[in-house]
């Protein structure tokens, strides 16, 4: 039902476009149209459906160990979900590793519930009827951080290392096209085609970008997580495939999450 509604709205917005005459007004009207569209949907983000399903999955007894995730420690103690996302990634003593939300959830699903790690990773990004439990769980956990300020701490040596590594990776140019994250996200007020690009080295832009992931992507009809965001950026960079939950993905997330500190978390959001 939601998806139909979303597609209808998208068409309505698109239909307005051909009538626009000059280049400049076309651009500002496009921006206005997108803003208006976001307003229309502000009360009915389809991400709600993922959040509800995720809450069910969190509480449901599943896996070979017949357990729920209610004892999973996301960093603030077993079972504490409220505000957990605003302090991730962080160092976890029990694994000796810095982990983001998704690797931590994976750790709990495997360790507490006895679910199959490879299967979860393979199905991390949902497509159509092939729904991802991970995306639903991420939607639920992050929704419990809405309105809470980001406060990722970089204190443990492993956290410092992760942050420093993330910064290096941000500037790492490679591949057939010489692209790095910084190619598109290192300067202010830039666009690719008509899409605005956040400058992730600028505090305000970095905060706005990080606090609006995960997001329901209208163009895909899916809720996408931060791991997906990084995976798909690297695809467009012409890099090989970023391993789900890899150290590089966590380092980059640590760098970007820390740079968003102080801003109120505002996701799951809605994006084009």
């Amino acid at each position, binding site marked *: 039902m939601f998806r139909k509604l979303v597609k209808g709205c998208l068409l309505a917005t698109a239909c307005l476009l051909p009538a626009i005459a000059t280049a400049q007004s076309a651009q500002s009207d496009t921006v206005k149209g997108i803003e208006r569209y976001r307003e229309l949907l502000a009360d009915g983000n389809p991400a709600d459906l993922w959040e509800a399903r995720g809450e069910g999955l969190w509480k449901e007894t599943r896996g070979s160990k017949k357990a729920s995730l209610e004892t999973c420690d996301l960093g603030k103690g077993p079972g504490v979900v409220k505000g957990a996302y605003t302090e991730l990634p962080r160092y976890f003593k029990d694994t000796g590793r810095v982990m983001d939300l998704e690797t931590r959830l994976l750790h709990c699903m495997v360790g507490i519930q006895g679910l199959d790690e490879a299967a979860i990773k393979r199905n991390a990004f949902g497509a159509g009827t092939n729904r991802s439990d991970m995306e639903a769980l991420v939607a639920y956990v992050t929704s419990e951080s809405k309105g809470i300020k980001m406060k990722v701490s970089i204190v443990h040596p492993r956290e410092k290392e992760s942050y420093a590594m993330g910064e290096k990776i941000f500037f790492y140019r490679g591949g057939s096209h010489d692209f790095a994250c910084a190619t598109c996200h290192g300067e202010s007020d830039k666009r690719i085609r008509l899409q605005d690009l956040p400058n992730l080295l600028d505090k305000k832009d970095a905060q706005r970008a990080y606090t609006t992931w995960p997001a329901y992507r209208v163009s895909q009809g899916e809720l996408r997580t931060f791991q997906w965001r990084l995976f798909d950026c690297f695809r*467009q960079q012409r890099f090989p495939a970023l391993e789900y939950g890899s150290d590089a993905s966590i380092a980059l997330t640590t760098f970007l999450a820390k740079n968003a500190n102080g801003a109120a978390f505002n996701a799951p959001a809605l994006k084009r």
Partner: protein
Amino acid sequence: MQNFKPMLVVAGLALGMASAGVAAADRAQVAVGEAEVMGEMFRSFNPQGQAGLSRLRQDDVQKFCSTPGWQKQKAHVKQLEKEQLATIKYPADGKLLGSWQAGERVAQTGVGMQFSDAPGSTAGGNCYACHQMSAEEVSFGTIGPSLRNFGKTRGNTEAMQRYAYGKIYNSQAYSACSNMPRFGHSGILTEQQMKDLTALLLDPNSPVNK
């Protein structure tokens, strides 16, 4: 608005990064070496489709340009541009202007070289992703400078044709660490495609110059 663009600082023999922002204290304490970064990259990616792990291996240019503050190493910048200039191979037939119509298609197309693209498929230049070019195309990006009236303002001289073709072939020959891919040097576009793009930029009948 707080800006924390990194600067380069020298701490003993190691290069570390500091910033003018909130994170300065955290950053200076940990230095991550080049080899460690490379190792982490190789461990964290999987080959998929046409994108093998060799894509992660940096050449000297990519390595240099990944270091914030490279601009200050003026002698290195000059040397890099000189070396990259020497890589440019001009067409054997001496003709640099192809068809601007075909060039427009190359400029519009963004497919190619992603692991999700069919291997062996013809890649595009995707020029409009970053540059304004013709007046008709309003969906253009701003990462690169506007190329509107490129030929009209510069003239369709042989020297300008060589510059435009060379810039497309290897952008870093003229501007070290440019964001623009080295389309010829990296084997993204064919000689014919680069000729067509040169025509798109310089042909008086091209929409870029109308």
